[in-house]
């Protein structure tokens, strides 16, 4: 959960990008890293395998600057999407303030999307969090590929509660900042 340090006048919020393997979570962070003003972001840390699959997490701190005297910062994390890395995924969710679910729009990845969404609910429940009461947005990634599921079907399967959702092509940056802005604002609102 968020931490306010009144001595250093800092507020830190943790946002986690979740979703099935190879869905584009790391790509979202890489795009943000490349495109935000370099003075506002820290070093991006990737704990990945030799084949660049996320092993533990990616981490990118982004500084919102000083708001009414409080230095405000978002800590962006990804989790490893592959099914067998659940222990790592659960650890990264500890203390989360907001979640982005990055789904893969391709038809053959629909089962993986649904499994990952169930896994997200389960892992959050183990910490006593209820996703329906948290800042949460969904991104439908890879909208430029052939054989994709229609938006209505994706929404029906993955977004029954109608949380804010966005179509994206993360490798081209499409939808990346819209997604980040939406979850960031929900997190900020949750602080009031």
């Amino acid at each position: 959960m968020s931490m306010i340090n009144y001595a250093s006048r800092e507020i830190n919020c943790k946002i986690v990008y979740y979703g099935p393997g190879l869905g584009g979570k790391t790509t979202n962070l890489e795009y943000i890293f490349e495109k935000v003003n370099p003075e506002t972001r820290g070093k991006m840390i990737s704990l990945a395998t030799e084949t660049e699959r996320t092993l533990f997490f990616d981490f990118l701190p982004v500084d919102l600057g000083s708001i009414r005297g409080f230095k405000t910062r978002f800590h962006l994390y990804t989790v490893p999407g592959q099914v067998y890395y659940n222990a790592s995924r659960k650890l990264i969710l500890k203390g989360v303030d907001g979640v982005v679910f990055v789904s893969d729009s391709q038809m053959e990845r629909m089962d993986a999307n649904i499994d990952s969404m169930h896994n997200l609910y389960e892992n959050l429940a183990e910490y006593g969090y209820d996703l329906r009461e948290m800042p949460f947005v969904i991104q439908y990634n890879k909208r430029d590929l052939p054989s994709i599921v229609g938006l209505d079907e994706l929404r029906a399967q993955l977004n029954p509660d109608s949380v804010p959702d966005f179509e994206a092509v993360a490798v081209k940056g499409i939808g990346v900042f819209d997604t980040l802005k939406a979850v960031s604002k929900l997190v900020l609102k949750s602080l009031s």
Partner: protein
Amino acid sequence: MTLETHGSWSFSEADVAEIEKRLGSLIAESKGRSAFLVDRTGQLITTVGDTNGLDGMALASLASANFSANDQLAGLVGERDFSSLVHQGERVSLYMADVARRVILGVLFDQQTTLGLVRLKAGLAVAALTELFRELFARFEAGARPLSMEAGWVNEAEDEVERLFRES
């Protein structure tokens, strides 16, 4: 008593002053270079001592991940936790210890001291910090919700989000 179940939290200036005083004593007594405190979710609470060139945010993120992985390893061999971790370097080493399963104390040290002395003094600091955090969390339990920013702050922050999160 463990403190691991607590959610959001905030520190007053007095809290941080007390923590930094304790860390300052630890550095002086152990002859370490610097000491830091990070929360288990990866947030830096404070650093004291020679922190020149140290990326505190990266340090906090990796230290908490390191400790979380450590907990899982402990579980695999039938232990509840491993209470400390040592990373031995050629010039600089890092000693980390758990504080009440909610916070991690780290000490960076070089050849001016020994692991034994650092471990001894850190153990005393952990005991003192555990007591300090116990009081801090007891205040949260008794009091109101620790985090609450005024509406004006949220509006300004949202404007800043719009300005920052775009292609530069």
